[in-house]
């Protein structure tokens, strides 16, 4: 899937969180977006994922405008997008395995297959042993990995990671970076970070005050 934005502006309150951002990601591209907190990184990633509606400008998934679709159709297409959230966004009331399986549950994937794919995703991030635990009992690094497993369980073409190293120590950060690259492999990968990370060898661009430099 090709992801692109054209003159994308998102206004929150009075100030624009994004101010005329144009970006194009071809299939298989890897890119880091870095910049200060409040610069619009999260908003850009969420707009690309169809979670935030543009105030003006457009977002395109290939030639498709996500906001021209019905909400049900949009959610069906979001299967092609994996998102690693800054705050993990795991559900503490569900087991780790159920958290990872959730994106498949409502998409009509047969239960046996969903469980097998969730197990496989957990295995790829090395968390098979934690499958039946609750997310709240895990460390920060492990929670990030659960988030990554959930993001890739639908076998998406694009992986978006919002500050995946937040709150991790340098060793865990390197592990997480290696894992991210391994899981992304041929997929499109867009990572938002406060500073460019040496552990992720890929082009980077700076986003500050809602403008892409």
């Amino acid at each position, binding site marked *: 899937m090709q992801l692109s934005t054209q003159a994308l502006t998102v206004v*929150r309150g009075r100030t624009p969180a994004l101010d005329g951002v144009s970006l194009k990601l071809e299939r298989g591209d890897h890119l880091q977006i870095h910049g200060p907190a409040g610069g619009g990184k999260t908003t850009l990633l*969420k707009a690309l*994922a169809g*979670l935030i509606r543009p105030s003006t400008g457009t977002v395109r998934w290939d030639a498709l405008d996500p906001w021209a679709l*019905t*909400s*049900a159709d949009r*959610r*069906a297409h*979001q*299967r092609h*997008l994996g*998102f690693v*959230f*800054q*705050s*993990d*966004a*795991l*559900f503490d009331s569900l087991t780790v395995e159920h958290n990872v399986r*959730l*994106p498949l*549950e*409502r*998409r009509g994937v047969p239960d046996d297959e969903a469980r097998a794919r969730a197990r496989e995703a957990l295995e790829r991030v090395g968390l098979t042993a934690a499958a039946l635990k609750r997310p709240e009992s895990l460390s920060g690094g492990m929670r990030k990995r659960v988030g990554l497993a*959930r993001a890739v369980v639908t076998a998406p073409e694009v992986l978006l990671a919002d500050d995946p190293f937040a709150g991790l120590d340098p060793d865990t950060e390197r592990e997480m970076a290696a894992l991210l690259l391994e899981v992304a492999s041929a997929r499109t990968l867009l990572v938002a970070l406060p500073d460019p990370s040496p552990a992720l060898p890929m082009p980077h661009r700076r986003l500050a005050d809602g403008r892409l430099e």
Partner: protein
Amino acid sequence: MTPVHVAGRHWLLLTRTVRALRHQRPPLKLVLAQLDELGTRSIWLVTAGMAFFGAVLTTIAWMQARKYIGNVAFAGPAYFQLLVRELGPVVAALLTASRAGAGASAELAAMSVQEQLEALELSAIDPLSELVAPRLIAATLAVPLLCVVGTVAAALAAAGTVFALGGDGSSFIDPRYLTGGDLLSALAKSLVCGVAIPLAACGRALEARGGAAAVGEAVTAGVVDACLLVLVLDFLVTLVFLGLGL
């Protein structure tokens, strides 16, 4: 924010939730869980609050009656009618708005700032049909029932108080003046409050962004919205019934 603005937001949330319901029905389990929440948690606050309220009203009536009217038992049937038609629905709905409204807005606002709503969307789950709709359905069913329970509690407490003060308490549960219109008015009030409370509580919570501070603000605003809506809707329904002559 103007009243038109507020009304518009709630109307929008209602129509969007109903539309979401048509596409994706919430699991019955979630609706039952919300009913259980209202039934097992809100009911205690409603019952206790309404019992206190009924006792207070008769205490006041008793003191005034001794001064001006003489016999307080005379006011009993009129009090009972006022309780059923007006006070029962509105005060019970306010208590439900405090308990259930605060609970719902706290839970949803915390989910919102922790990006869990967006995680649901990416899991092909519509937050409106999964989180708002069950609360809407449960409250629409349960608030009228809570109003009945609260009204009964207040009436019994009133009768008991008059007995304790040495009067004839049975006149305070005398349905002599009660008409079908009164019951219809009470039902209408509790139904619209049942719809409004979850909408007000969820509306602010879904928009909460930022950190823990936003959660506190969302709870405050959600409960205030819910209580104000209850008062406004109650007044409007009273006006409509007055106009209809029921």
